[in-house]
């Protein structure tokens, strides 16, 4: 039976951290939900707590208030079915493409045969077969991102969290990888949440686009975007309209987020 993607519920989530002896509020009363198998985007200005939100969803940071449920359970550090791709890809420079891709399987102590089979499958799917012996420093930005996605998918997650995944790539590579991500989603079994400050990226990929206010980050508005990821969507009037609305929401949200 095919596995379903994770259902995510975030309810009045808050997060505080200490900085130079002060208590800083990073997230305030953030609430949204992600349907199983969907792709959603969180968009907001830099420093609005987008990455913090991903770390909490990945179980790497405990929330200060509110709750997060993934398939009805609180996320724990290293939740086996959650994969996180960081902004700079998080690849280890001393490991080859192959060793980076299978790292999640190695640390989970899977049998060598299974590691080999899964690694080969994911490498072929992501078109990385010929790069297996290369080090990250020998790859282009797009190739590195492919390796990061391959590493994330190798552990067969039901929730994929991506932090500014395509921010450092040129426009064409970015669009090619967005299409790759869309194909992965079509295969099913995966819920994706990506955070970005790129309006076009959020509008193209996010079935649900959640706009954050800056300092502290809270949900300003949620846009439903049923045509997300559909072929040719980037060139439609609807896409440009959504981009304009998102830009407007970001500007209004910026005003709403600033302390009175």
């Amino acid at each position: 039976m095919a596995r379903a993607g994770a259902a995510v519920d975030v309810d009045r989530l808050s997060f505080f951290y200490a900085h130079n002896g002060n208590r800083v509020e990073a997230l305030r009363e953030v609430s949204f939900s992600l349907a199983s198998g969907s792709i959603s985007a969180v968009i907001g200005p830099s420093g609005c707590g987008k990455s913090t939100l991903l770390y909490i969803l990945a179980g790497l940071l405990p929330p200060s208030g509110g709750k997060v449920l993934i398939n009805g359970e609180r996320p724990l550090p290293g939740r086996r079915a959650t994969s996180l791709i960081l902004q700079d890809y998080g690849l280890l420079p001393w490991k080859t493409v192959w060793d980076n891709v299978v790292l999640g399987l190695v640390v989970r102590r899977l049998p060598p045969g299974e590691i080999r089979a899964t690694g080969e499958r994911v490498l072929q799917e992501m078109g990385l077969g010929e790069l297996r012996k290369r080090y990250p420093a020998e790859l282009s930005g797009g190739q590195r991102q492919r390796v990061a996605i391959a590493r994330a998918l190798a552990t067969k997650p039901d929730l994929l969290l991506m932090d500014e995944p395509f921010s450092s790539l040129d426009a064409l590579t970015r669009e090619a990888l967005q299409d790759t991500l869309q194909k992965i989603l079509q295969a099913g079994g995966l819920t994706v949440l990506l955070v970005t400050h790129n309006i076009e990226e959020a509008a193209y990929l996010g079935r649900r686009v959640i706009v954050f206010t800056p300092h502290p980050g809270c949900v300003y508005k949620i846009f439903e975007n049923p045509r997300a990821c559909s072929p040719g969507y980037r060139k439609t009037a609807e896409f440009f309209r959504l981009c304009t609305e998102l830009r407007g929401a970001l500007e209004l949200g910026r005003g709403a987020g600033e302390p009175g």
Partner: protein
Amino acid sequence: MAQSKGRNKILSRLIFKLAPILVLFLSWQLLAVLLNSAALPTPGRAFLTFFQEIPAGLWKHFLVSSWRVLASIFISLLGGVALGLWLGAEERFDRFFAPLIYLTYPVPKIVFLPVVMVFLGLGDLSKIFLITLVVFFQDLVTTRDAARNVSQAMILSVVSLGAGKLDIYRHVIWPAIIPDVFTALRIGSGTAIAVLFFAESFASSEGLGYYLMDAWSRNAYQEMFAGIMAMGLLGYLLYVGLDMLDKKICPWKGL
């Protein structure tokens, strides 16, 4: 055509490598001729003595010193790197030990040579202990600082894959600090040879330090320079060995 191009490349690389050594020996030759003193023999004479002294006993002193330096480097590497790795990755323990390290690190450990000799005798043990003590702190501080600077984002990305604490040490922290460990080893090798000379020049009957001091006391300057050349050779072999290991263990460096 291609063959001769390749040969030219090898030749130019060889010239590039040998040129600094040639400059050193030419300067030495010039200085020796200008000063015209028995205290500074020409490189030719020093080399001749060096090759005459090797079979006459210099080889034995060379081996004894090599053993002492290598043993010290190995022990200080094990202790310094293990402790540095732990302190760099565990902040609360580092806070506890840091004052102790800062208090003891700057103290010149060679002043303890008489005390060390009283407790560990005049043989290998006291010399190895003293060199280890000096190099240990260099390895410790370098490793600890390197482990402290490992990217937290990188650690988090591996934790998110399901890695435990030992996995983090094995797959992230340890490989991240290896280049710094090699730097510490290179610096430590030079320090180890300097301390070796000091440790072997007191109450010793073997080792390059003893050989040098003995030649010095007899005003046998050519032998003294042969000893200096043996020390230089020891340092050179250590550096070449470390470079080879570095390239083998860290192939990703410099990509």
